[in-house]
């Protein structure tokens, strides 16, 4: 029987973070993962994370995954891939299957970090080839470099639906629409805005009625639903697509904890059935911990911190760290975790109807329902400089209108123009006294792509609008095209003045287009002719 100090089940962000924490304290650690690649969902995430620097904000998920793996390897953590844990038994014994071999392994502590599985949405025709989960689209595009289809319909407007929808566009597919049965978009407004400005339609209060096709998906019918989720007769719309992506939520994959005998509870806020555990992740079984999505659906940033807490707790259990060190570590980790659990989308604030932000600014209903802030609403926010300031020269315009824990913009400006403060859910403010140099670091640093540079002092009756740009083909200086509004509507002609891609921006380019002066506060996307 193999023995280790710690067995970690799952090599995702929570599992690897737990392994690193425990190995740093001197424990012998083995991590089992049923997949052939480690990193859990991290390697499929090509967008920049939110949060603060300590939460790895501004870093792309797959780069965080690479760093975690390297750190685990350096510490001598044994990561066993294609290794499926079949059961967790008494006295912290597990059976694990690798290739055709079943092994029994024992440890002083076990950390279950098995993550989550996708929820299902059955509808007529959902078994047709071409209907896939959102995770499947990410796997195909971001791990294997193959497009899931040519024209894709996204069902679900939570963060997964919005982020994967954007990735589908980056992969060179056409995203036909995003559909959600709820009257409001479920994910962050900035994620919706990123795709709304390209012209993508959101169909809120709609659901999918049927997928059509004989041997594969050829089209779909969506239908409006009323307040009781009943289809509204006569509101059917047919959309021609070849792929339907289902992104209707995640549920914790907690079967191993259940079969081990942990006391379980069902918690809709956490996404399903989870083991009851204390603040360190320890379940009702001594020495068996949980961390990450398996303990409740959150984000990768939260998963990493929970992994560290559970790793530290298992180290304390073995006497590898003292009580004092453990307490100070956990205080720090908990503080960091609580920062992420604030804001409009936090579990504790779920379901509460909100009219305004914490600071008292009116929430954009247009953003919630249609994915873009309306022109008349935009100037109210603290990140949008007043007209007099804009008339004096180049200025940043921060269209960040919801309380989300995130502050990379604050660090991006060398001149200290952008202020968020220590409460990172606060909406960023522009310091009117600071002269903007137009370097564009804020534009390319914002994970929500919500920052633009506007220069209304351009010869003739023109304005220059600088936008973040992450699509191929990347336009070139001199390209002519059209400027689109926040809602993706045609505004007028535009010409590319410059395209800057710097190493520091990690593949986010800053595209500056020249448009009619009156469009400076409207033009937010460029499409080449």
């Amino acid at each position, binding site marked *: 029987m193999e023995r280790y100090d710690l067995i970690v089940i799952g090599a995702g962000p929570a599992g690897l973070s737990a392994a690193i924490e425990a190995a740093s304290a001197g424990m012998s650690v083995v991590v089992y993962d*049923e*997949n*052939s690649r480690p990193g859990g969902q991290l390697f499929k995430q*090509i967008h920049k994370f939110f949060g603060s620097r300590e939460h790895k904000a501004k870093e*792309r998920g*797959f780069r965080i995954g690479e760093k975690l793996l390297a750190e685990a390897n350096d510490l001598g953590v044994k990561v066993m891939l294609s290794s499926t844990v079949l059961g967790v038994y008494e006295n912290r014994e597990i059976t694990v299957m690798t290739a055709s071999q079943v092994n029994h392994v024992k440890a002083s502590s076990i950390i279950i970090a098995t993550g989550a*599985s*996708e929820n299902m949405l059955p509808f007529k025709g959902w*078994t*047709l*080839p*071409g*209907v*896939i*989960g959102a*995770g*499947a689209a990410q*796997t*195909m*595009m*971001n791990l*294997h*470099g*193959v*497009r*899931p289809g*040519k024209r894709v319909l996204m069902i679900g407007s939570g963060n997964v639906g919005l982020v994967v929808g954007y990735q589908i566009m*980056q*992969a*060179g597919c056409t995203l036909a629409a995003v559909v959600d049965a709820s009257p409001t978009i479920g994910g962050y407004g900035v994620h919706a805005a990123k795709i709304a400005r390209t012209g993508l339609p959101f169909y809120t209060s709609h659901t999918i009625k049927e997928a059509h096709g004989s*041997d*594969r998906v050829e089209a779909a019918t969506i239908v409006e639903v009323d307040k009781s989720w009943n289809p509204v007769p006569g509101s059917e719309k047919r959309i021609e697509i070849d792929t339907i992506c289902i992104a209707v939520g995640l549920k914790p994959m907690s079967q191993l904890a259940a079969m081990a005998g942990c006391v379980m509870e069902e918690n809709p806020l956490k996404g399903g059935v989870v083991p009851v555990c204390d603040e360190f992740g320890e379940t009702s079984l001594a020495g068996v911990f949980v961390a990450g999505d398996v303990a409740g659906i959150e984000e990768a940033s939260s998963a990493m911190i929970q992994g560290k807490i559970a790793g530290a707790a298992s180290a304390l259990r073995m006497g590898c760290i003292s009580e004092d060190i453990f307490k100070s570590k956990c205080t720090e980790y908990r503080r960091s975790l609580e920062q992420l659990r604030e804001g409009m989308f936090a579990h504790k604030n779920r379901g509460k109807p909100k009219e305004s932000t914490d600071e008292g600014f009116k929430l954009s209903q247009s953003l919630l329902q249609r994915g873009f802030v309306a022109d008349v609403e935009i100037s109210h926010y603290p990140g949008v400089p007043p007209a007099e300031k804009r008339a004096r020269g180049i200025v940043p315009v921060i269209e960040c209108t919801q309380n989300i824990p995130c502050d990379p913009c604050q660090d991006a400006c060398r001149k200290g123009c952008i202020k968020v403060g220590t409460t990172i859910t606060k909406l960023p403010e522009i310091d009117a006294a600071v002269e903007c140099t137009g370097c564009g670091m804020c534009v390319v640093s914002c994970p929500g792509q919500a920052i633009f540079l506007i220069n209304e002092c351009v010869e003739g009756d023109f304005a220059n609008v600088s936008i973040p740009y*992450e*699509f*191929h083909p*990347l336009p070139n200086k001199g390209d002519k095209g059209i400027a689109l509004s926040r809602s993706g509507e045609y505004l007028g002609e535009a010409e590319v003045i410059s395209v800057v891609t710097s190493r520091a921006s990690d*593949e986010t380019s800053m595209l500056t287009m020249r448009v009619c002066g009156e469009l400076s506060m409207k033009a937010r996307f460029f499409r080449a002719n």
Partner: protein
Amino acid sequence: MCSASVSDSASDEENIMRIQNHPILKQFEKGKAVSFYFDGRILEGFEDEPIAVALKANGVMVHRYTSRDRKPRGIFCAIGRCTDCVMIVDGKPNVRTCITPLREGMKIETQYGVSKEDQVK
């Protein structure tokens, strides 16, 4: 290792479905180019990528027909959990093509229920 640039002789379908230059991920590292058989046809793919990925790149959508209703199925979860993508690989049925690596000369066949087409009564 070679990058996923498709040769001139590759099918048009491969050129549409494979991502040549991704805005964030740039080039995808792939194994060496290999040929394999799908229902008797010769197709191209890359060694070690999942069989399902090679099939998708070639425009193949249907992996099997179900036992009871003879309905088409293809990739659904892409992570080896739903078993919709199973096919007969080198004579063995119920092989999850989304997590099984492609090898030179592999024989992939559409699965009918749990059998080959000509064995279905």
